[in-house]
């Protein structure tokens, strides 16, 4: 069964009288447990597509089915709830909260649950252990390297045990060594934890790790 099923989606941005068609009747499926890479030149619409799958943007037309739910049809509150339970997002620039330490950053999505403080803490530490940063639990982002920050961000993305993990250029801001470590980790999430991964990337090395590659150009798939 497809974990992600994008059906004839169009995304149009309007500014005054101008219209910019970013996605043009695009359809795409990502099977459950797949590791898919979205590639294409700048402006091809890959990040826009990723945002639609993650539920942080809505298409102008079409349906976006994620884990059996049409996220395009959900209201704002339902969508927020859907994201918190089903989607883990990894940003290019980590986007950790600077005033929170590693554990507190990972714990952030769990504040939306009914878990007790102790339970939230335990789950956060478990996620940090998975990404190999249990010894940095009390460190603040400013005390971590870029690669470590991204690993904390990954821990935050997986702490709610989401069905889908979306990653927007997760290695874009990292050196080669750190990038390799992150890609290894993402691979582990897919292989050992059976997570469905959808990743936008410019990096051919990152794309090689994916099982499926999709190429976008001017808002349409070129597969």
């Amino acid at each position, binding site marked *: 069964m497809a974990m992600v099923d994008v059906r004839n989606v169009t995304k149009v941005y309007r500014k005054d009288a101008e219209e910019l068609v970013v996605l043009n009747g695009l359809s795409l499926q990502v099977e459950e447990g797949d590791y898919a890479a979205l590639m294409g030149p700048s402006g091809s619409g890959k990040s826009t597509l990723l945002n639609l799958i993650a539920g942080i*943007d809505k298409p102008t037309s079409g349906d976006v089915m994620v884990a059996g739910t049409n996220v395009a049809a959900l209201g704002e509150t339902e969508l927020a709830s859907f994201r918190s339970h089903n989607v883990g*997002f990894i940003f290019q620039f980590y*986007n950790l*909260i600077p005033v929170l330490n590693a554990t507190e950053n990972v714990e*952030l*999505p769990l504040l939306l649950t009914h878990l007790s403080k102790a339970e939230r803490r335990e789950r956060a530490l478990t996620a940090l252990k998975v990404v190999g940063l249990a010894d940095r639990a009390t460190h603040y982002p400013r005390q971590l390297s870029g690669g470590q920050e991204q690993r904390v961000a990954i821990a*935050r993305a997986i702490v709610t045990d989401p069905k889908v993990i979306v990653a927007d250029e997760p290695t874009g801001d990292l050196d080669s060594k750190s990038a390799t470590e992150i890609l290894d980790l993402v691979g582990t999430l897919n292989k050992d934890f059976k997570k469905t991964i959808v990743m936008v990337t410019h990096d051919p090395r990152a794309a090689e790790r994916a099982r499926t590659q999709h190429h976008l150009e001017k808002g349409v798939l070129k597969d």
Partner: protein
Amino acid sequence: MKFLPYLLKHLRRNWFRTTLTVLAMALCIFLFCTLQSVLAQINLLLEGTSAKRLVTRNSVSIVFDVPLAYGPRIQSVPGVERVAISSWFGGSLPAKKEGKSEPDSSSSTTDWSNFFQNLAVEMEPFLAMYPEYQLPPEQYQALLADQRGCLIGRKLASKFGWKLGDSFFLESFIPPHRKPDGPFEFVVRGIFDTDPVKYSATDTNIMLFHFKYLYEATGRQLSAGTYYVEIKDPNQAGEVSAAIDRLFENSDAQTHTETEKAFQASFVAMAGNLALLLNGIGVAVTFTILLVVANTMSIAVRERRKEIGVLKTLGFTSAQVMGLVVAESLLIAAIGGGLGIAGSRGIMWLVTNTPGIKGALAGIGLSELTLQPLVALLGFAVAVFLGFAAGFVPALGAYRARITDMLRTV
């Protein structure tokens, strides 16, 4: 509550900015509470007056006396029930001499630290027009029988630990009220109470003694400071006041007669329209602080646009994000408000316990200046309102912002 650690961490994000904003809020609430307390105390003072009592004073100024001959003539005015002399003595306890536990009666140095209101009055008619002062009959008789006897309020008695029969000395700073041989000695012959429900505004922190004692001890040179006049019908206050003043309009010492409330209010009016002034200051400061806190929150939200985008991506709804922004603003306001209330309480304790200032306050009946619970509550409510109002607009911006726009912020 689970978001409180998150909010506190954000307050620590920029210590300097948070501290300044909290202090600004504290200053606003401090001023509000202090000014409102002064107004509340003044209003309380005015409530302790009676519509049946008038005060006749020298029309030029309160500092000038009124001739003793005026008393019987005022008594003769239709509508007047009784008349009593009342002169503000201005006495203070003499300072203790070194090495002595009791004040030195021969000392000419006054102790301003324990100043209280003391009046020389014609005791019988004065007490007759003050049903607020409740006194057992035997104490009343003892008071009348002893020219050195004085009547003190329960609060004053408790403050100094005075009992019936105790004696103490007072020395006035007003030269005509001083004896050549030293301070005046008084003996406590009566301690009055008041009905706390019926006469809640009555001050029991005062002392009354016989005008005759003052008059004779100072060589029979004195005149009356004021005349207290009890009238039969409060509705006749205007007519009786005018009639009294007409009696003396061609005399050397012309009079001005007014209700007791107006008389008390005139002391306050020496500072201009005090209510308007104090409330005006309060409004101006409150509005300014609103702008300061709103600016702080706007900057905070602008700095954290990306963070707000991340929170929404993680599943926080727009309403929750808005709530976090407002909560942060409320937290700043609550901390500042608490500090302001504590500061107000502290400053009022300080002024009512600092010699000199305390004396001046006692002179105008404000020695009991204190922060009332209701004023403190109102002050906190103002802080909460300011916090909400200041945080609302930035919070609304965060509410409305699209996730993709916020994540794109550099």
